[in-house]
């Protein structure tokens, strides 16, 4: 297995297609993600956002198109990426520390301890997952992903099952670790507010294609009370629901974001 790099990676998705039993889930989807960027993918359930993430992770192959990581085409499992699943997927028969050590060389206890300390679970390392709360389990899953120093972190609705307060806490934790380690991050979520709060750009998928590509140029740490913040949330929600924007700020937004888009694409 190739060593996983520490810094972010460019992800270039070109005309990717995926279908299950003649049902087209992804329909020639294009998306460019720059190294170190935090991108959220939103959309109605069944729109193909989780499928896209699984393709980037290499858990499944594309039916058409290609995915390039720093100009190298992805084949098989993506060993530069680590994935965090919605259901945590800790091994219930392994203690917290052993779970984090999974897939690491035998002498990696120290590294695993450091990762667990970073997510604030230093004193739970000898517990079995069944003794942990939902939020703590996802912290362990986060530590398990980060201990590999991935250049790409894939988050498949990891906070979907958590209560509102724990979710805010976890968002803060993920954001701070992302800032500190500078990996590329792709978050699939159904929570538009979460997407706006945490990411540089929100991508909306509909009918297997990118339907909206919305940079969020708000300064960090982001205030949810900021009117611009709720403007973005509402704008994206309108687009998801296929509603006409009730207000007129979509024009302003588009001008502002167009210049941002131009700046990152050139």
């Amino acid at each position: 297995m190739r060593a996983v790099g520490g810094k972010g990676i460019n992800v270039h998705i070109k005309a990717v297609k995926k279908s299950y039993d003649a049902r087209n889930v992804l329909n020639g989807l294009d998306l460019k993600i720059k190294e170190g960027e935090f991108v959220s993918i939103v959309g109605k359930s069944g729109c193909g956002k989780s499928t896209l993430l699984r393709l980037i992770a290499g858990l499944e192959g594309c039916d058409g198109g290609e995915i390039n990581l720093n100009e190298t085409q992805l084949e098989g499992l993506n060993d530069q990426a680590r994935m965090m699943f919605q259901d945590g997927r800790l091994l219930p028969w392994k203690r917290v520390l052993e779970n984090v050590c999974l897939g690491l060389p035998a002498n990696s206890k120290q590294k695993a301890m450091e990762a667990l300390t970073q997510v604030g679970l230093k004193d739970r390392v000898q517990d079995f997952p069944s003794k942990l709360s939902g939020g703590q389990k996802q912290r362990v899953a986060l530590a398990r992903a980060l201990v590999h120093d991935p250049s790409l972190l894939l988050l498949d609705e990891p906070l979907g099952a958590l209560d509102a307060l724990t979710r805010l806490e976890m968002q803060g934790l993920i954001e701070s670790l992302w800032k500190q380690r500078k990996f590329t991050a792709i978050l699939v979520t159904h929570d538009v507010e979460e997407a706006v709060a945490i990411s540089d750009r929100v991508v909306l998928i509909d009918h297997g294609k990118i339907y909206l590509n919305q940079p969020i140029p708000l300064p960090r740490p982001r205030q949810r009370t900021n009117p611009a913040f709720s403007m973005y949330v509402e704008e994206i929600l309108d687009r998801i629901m296929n509603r006409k924007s009730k207000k007129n700020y979509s024009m302003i937004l588009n001008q502002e974001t167009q210049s941002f888009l131009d700046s990152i694409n050139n």
Partner: protein
Amino acid sequence: MKWSVKGKGSLETLLPWFIPLLLIIGWQILSWTGAIPERILPAPSQIVEAAVGLMVTGELYDHISISLSRALVGFLIGGVIGFLFGLFNGIFRFADLFFDTSIQMLRNIPHLALIPLVILWFGIGETSKIFLVALGVLFPVYINTYHGIKSVEKNLIEMGKAYGLKGKALFWHVILPGAMSSILVGIRFSLGVMWLTLIVAETISAQSGIGYMAMNAREFMQMDVIVLSIVIYALFGKLSDVIARYFERKLLKWNS
């Protein structure tokens, strides 16, 4: 405070034995008063006497050790074969297609129905008893191992692969522990089958062992020895259950 906790702990260990103890005391009293005639059921004290007598001559030890070794050897042979088939058929699709149907057909034959055939094949020597025990043990271990491996969560296997596990590592860290609780159910069940098979086989065709001891005693109307044999089977049944539970607690402690 400490005392009451301790008291509660010992009460919990003693309570399950309350009914057996009460039964034995009642049985002894009824025998003394003559309510239970000796030729129907001897008193517990007489059974103990018989046990002591057979222990002194060394006969009891011989019978028990031969029965135990048959049980153990048959269990190991059948268990290992059943486990390996369960493993391979659970993991490899080819093995599954190739073997499973045949095993399912064999499984539905009551193995005790083979006794006449087995006697003709192997005579009444050790082989026939070990063969029958192994055959009886094989299927419950097979079914539960196979089922355990098939029902390991696909999500966890996918996660293991995504985190770089494959082949042996995936088996030891994810698949085997995931199947373990089902495998242990199979082992516990097969321990029961093991005793049952052994009793029947020893009763019908043997020249040693506890089943033989009981059949032999019947010829001489030694009620105490017959009942003693039954009690020994009960004790061994309980013992194997205790051992199985110990392993369950040890291997599945994450589940508690």
